[in-house]
């Protein structure tokens, strides 16, 4: 997971959540995402940023755009917080119940086209997601 070409927004408090969300939405719309997709992206950013504020106290939300024959947006949430001990439970998809541990991660995975997470106690968390622009 390299960082080239990613623009990052620091996330420390709830005001940063709004900034991160708006920045992400602007970039998404610039890449051509509209309507539901644009809302989905903003919602995902909001949830990921909120997790950072609630559990890690500081981190960052990074964005990247892929443009070409297919366009896509990359959203990475990174923090050096306590890390998730039980990743399996955190990623349990309970469909309508919002998933395990209240982190909304299964939902994020469902909303995005690609999703990867690295987290362990003491090492912080990195969530990498990607959404492709549908024509």
């Amino acid at each position: 997971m390299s960082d080239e070409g990613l623009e990052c927004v620091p996330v420390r408090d709830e005001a940063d959540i709004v900034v991160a969300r708006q920045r992400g939405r602007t970039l998404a719309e610039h890449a051509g995402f509209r309507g539901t997709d644009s809302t989905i992206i903003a919602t995902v950013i909001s949830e990921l940023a909120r997790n950072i504020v609630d559990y890690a106290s500081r981190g960052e939300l990074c964005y990247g755009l892929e443009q070409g024959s297919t366009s896509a947006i990359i959203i990475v949430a990174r923090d050096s917080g306590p890390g998730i001990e039980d990743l399996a439970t955190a990623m349990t998809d309970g469909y309508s119940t919002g998933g395990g541990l209240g982190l909304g991660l299964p939902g994020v995975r469902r909303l995005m086209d690609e999703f990867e997470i690295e987290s362990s106690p003491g090492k912080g968390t990195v969530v990498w997601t990607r959404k492709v622009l549908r024509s």
Partner: protein
Amino acid sequence: MSVPILKQGDFLLASVQSALSDTDLLTLRDELVERVGRFRSTGVIIDVTPLDVMDSFATRNLRMIAHMTRLRGAETVIVGIQPEVAFSMVQLGLTLEGVATALDLEEGLELLKSKSATRFDYE
């Protein structure tokens, strides 16, 4: 930026702005609860039409508002959730369970009136 709350007879109407911060929402919660008590309102409508994102925090607190106002004798209806927002919410598992919803202000008022009518019958 605080959320304006209007009194319409027995009901309170709150219209949210699109840039709703966490603090705004918490303030709204406290103010609604206070006014429901003060005016003995029987209904609250929260219009979220301009909201382009509804995340877990907003959902949690809207449910809390509905719960707390109900304890004081008022029914809360959330109106104006947009299609894209509804879709994203459900995908994330945020269902606003236990909270009444309606399409818009007009429908919300109608719903509150019919609920009040029913309540009145039983009193």
